[in-house]
């Protein structure tokens, strides 16, 4: 049975107040089309988690869709800070549980294994840990190793309601390939109650069966498959298209102030009917074709 739906239907399956894990990392494989549709459908009070802050989380925070962020910090590198996330943290309007890349991956890993908690060496002695010790209900604690008697920091497992994963290739059942480095995505998708796969290419199951070792998320974990080209734009999808440096710069400038972000949203999110309208607004086929990746370089 096919799980292929429209983006609007997949987004409509997420009630306000849900915990949504996102696949983005800075400017790579960000769930941008998804984020735009969440904003258009006025879904709010979300908890968003991801190991490294990315453009998908930033625009959702800027648009007021997010109540709480669980992440390991992050920026867009040389193209600047995530201004909406940072503003929310500085002004205290965004509830924040801040970890490191590995500690949040461990929380997903524990969730994916059905374990209640996981010990870790990271975070000890840091002010990140001191802040986490103030979180209620608790997400960190300590435990004595029953074999050696050593004291260990333990983290509570993290089980998001849904993981939204931007992938290169999937079939209609949701068997999904992630090519290139995949940071937290495998643990994140498997920790979650279900996954929504957003794919650049929709292929036959016969194609999946030819290269089964590439499947990172098996279809039985997936509730919806959305097939949308350039759905991570302006971030990159390894092997498919490069990030759009000029558009990211435009977003970086706009998101420096709430007013600027509102204008960006008016133009590229509210001002278009759907993802196809967005693609026209950012320059259409002529522009998008200039971003298509070289098959060897991957960018």
């Amino acid at each position, binding site marked *: 049975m096919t799980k292929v739906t429209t983006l609007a239907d997949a987004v409509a399956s997420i009630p306000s107040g849900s915990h949504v894990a996102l696949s983005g990392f800075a400017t790579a494989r960000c769930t941008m089309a998804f984020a735009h549709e969440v904003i258009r459908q006025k879904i709010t009070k979300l908890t968003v988690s991801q190991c490294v802050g*990315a453009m998908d989380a930033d625009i959702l925070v800027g648009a007021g869709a997010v109540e709480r962020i669980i992440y390991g910090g992050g920026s867009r590198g040389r193209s600047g800070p995530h201004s909406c996330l*940072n503003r929310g943290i500085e002004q205290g309007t965004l509830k924040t549980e801040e970890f490191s890349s*590995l500690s949040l*991956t*461990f929380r997903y890993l524990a969730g994916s294994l059905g374990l209640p908690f996981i010990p870790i*060496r990271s975070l*000890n002695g840091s002010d990140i840990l001191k802040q986490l010790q103030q979180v209620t209900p608790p997400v960190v604690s300590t435990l004595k190793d029953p074999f050696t008697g050593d004291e260990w920091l333990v983290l509570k497992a993290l089980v998001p309601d849904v993981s939204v994963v931007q992938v290169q290739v999937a079939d209609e059942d949701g068997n999904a390939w992630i090519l*290139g480095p995949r940071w937290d995505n*495998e643990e994140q998708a498997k920790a979650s109650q279900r996954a929504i796969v957003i794919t650049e290419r929709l292929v036959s199951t016969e194609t999946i069966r030819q290269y089964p070792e590439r499947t990172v998320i098996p279809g039985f974990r997936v509730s919806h498959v959305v097939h949308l080209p350039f759905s991570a734009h302006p971030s990159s999808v390894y092997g498919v298209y490069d990030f759009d440096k000029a558009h990211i710069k435009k977003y970086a400038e706009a998101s420096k102030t709430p007013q600027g972000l509102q204008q960006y949203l008016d133009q590229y999110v509210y001002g278009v009917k759907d993802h196809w309208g967005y693609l026209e607004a950012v320059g259409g086929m002529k522009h998008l074709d200039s971003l298509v990746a070289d098959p060897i370089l991957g960018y």
Partner: protein
Amino acid sequence: MTAEIEYAAYELMVAAGARELKDGEIVAVGLGLPVIATFLAQRTHAPHITILLELGVVDPEPLEVGVDGLSDPRIWYRAKAHTGFADMLGSVLHRGIVDVGFLGGLEIDAYGNLNTTLLGDPKGKFRRFTGSGGGNDVASNANRTVITIRHEARKLNEAVSFITSPGYLGGNDERQRAGLRGGPSRVITDKAVFGFDPVSKRMKLESIHPNTTLDEVLSNMSFRPIVPDQVPFTEPPTAEQIRLIREEIDPGRAYEGS
């Protein structure tokens, strides 16, 4: 080789960073100057090092190093493996087999603690930076850490306002008692190289760069490191190291201002 060789401060930092890596070591590398230094070590005395990028990239051979960040696919090119955090930071770093964590810093204190989280008062008014990413994990789990940072008084403080990535915490055996491995071994700035006192774990001046003075080094710090009676000059980069940096590793001079 007696002729004076012209070089930029960042080229000396790169050479000093490369010197810290031994052949055959596994190195977890942060972007920027550490990447250039690691590639320099690989092309000179340490051809058998293994380079890890935290998001899941092993031994990349990028065509250009002036990338936007770790998420820029240019820095993933020609890798031997593409994996993820659970592998790179988990079954390699947390497992205990990363020899060197090589990090760039924004603010460091007298005991090598790093702040990349915020500027100001964490409970009051502050400006947010980037937070940890894999920085805390590398600083907590690598067998030693090498840190590069710009030599400015506002970046070199007695205590940081927020410990993102632990060094020796309050000094002495405090790091060990917190259950952490390793610790910072070197801090390389554009004016000097520092180590840490083996007992107190306070930062200790190891060498000052040619063309600087002890006074210039100390007056651009907000704390006083341990200063031995004799402080040598940092070994300058060789002509071959400079050629490799300029012609092969960073021809775009992407990190000149770092």
